[in-house]
């Protein structure tokens, strides 16, 4: 807290005041000694903004508190280090074992279905033949 002239005046034993300059000097010295702000004209220095605490972390914690950092985040912020992603490793292992058991994902189709194309272009008879 900045020591203002009124507070100093309150502390004085008598009502006979020293000159204004002396009081200001006193406020200045006290501010210097206790490393407080000396701002006699109450100028707006924007310190209010600097004093505000950052709200981002709290707001981020809204939907799922306490689970903000994952392996991907670690890798992004520390690219020089390596991190093991246990979940991803387990997933790859599962995929591999499924493939070995013949239960993997089906192969991609290389050509479009020829039968269907014929049906669309062909006449009614061809369509019936194709259906039979």
């Amino acid at each position, binding site marked *: 807290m900045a020591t203002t002239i009124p507070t100093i005046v309150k502390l004085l034993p008598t009502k006979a005041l020293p000159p204004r300059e002396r009081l200001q000097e006193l406020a200045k010295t006290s501010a210097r000694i206790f490393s407080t702000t000396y701002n006699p004209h109450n100028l707006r220095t924007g310190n209010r903004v*600097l004093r505000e605490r950052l709200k*981002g972390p709290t*707001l*981020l914690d*809204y939907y*799922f508190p306490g*689970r903000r950092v*994952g392996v*991907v985040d670690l890798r992004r912020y520390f690219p020089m280090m390596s991190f093991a992603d246990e979940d991803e490793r387990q997933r790859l292992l599962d995929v591999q074992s499924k493939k070995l058991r013949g239960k993997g994902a089906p192969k991609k189709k290389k050509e479009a279905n020829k039968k269907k194309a014929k049906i669309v272009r062909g006449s009614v008879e061809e369509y019936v033949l194709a259906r039979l």
Partner: protein
Amino acid sequence: MFPTLRLSKALNLGSFVNARVLRDHARREAFAAAELTRQALRYIAQNTQLPLLQRTKAQVDLALMDSNTRRMKIKNRCIVSGRGRGILRNFRICRYQFRLMGKAGDLPGVKKANW
């Protein structure tokens, strides 16, 4: 829609998720990422000791920042149902879920009044 918003790839929200919840969470991430810049610009803009040109420039920069980095764009939503209105801030759920969960005894210390 939100080309500037990018969600963390390791995102695992434990709560109910729909597009609106995701959008709100993305806004939270955008705000948290830009908060420091925003505060620095606010400091420059509000400091009357600095030259007028610099302060004006800071004001313009603030105004030109992505609107999704604003604090006021963030809205508290229900973590159980994703509802945007009628949220009890202390429980982070909406009034209807509060009623259901309170009745079921899922909220510690919450009891239906009876007199």
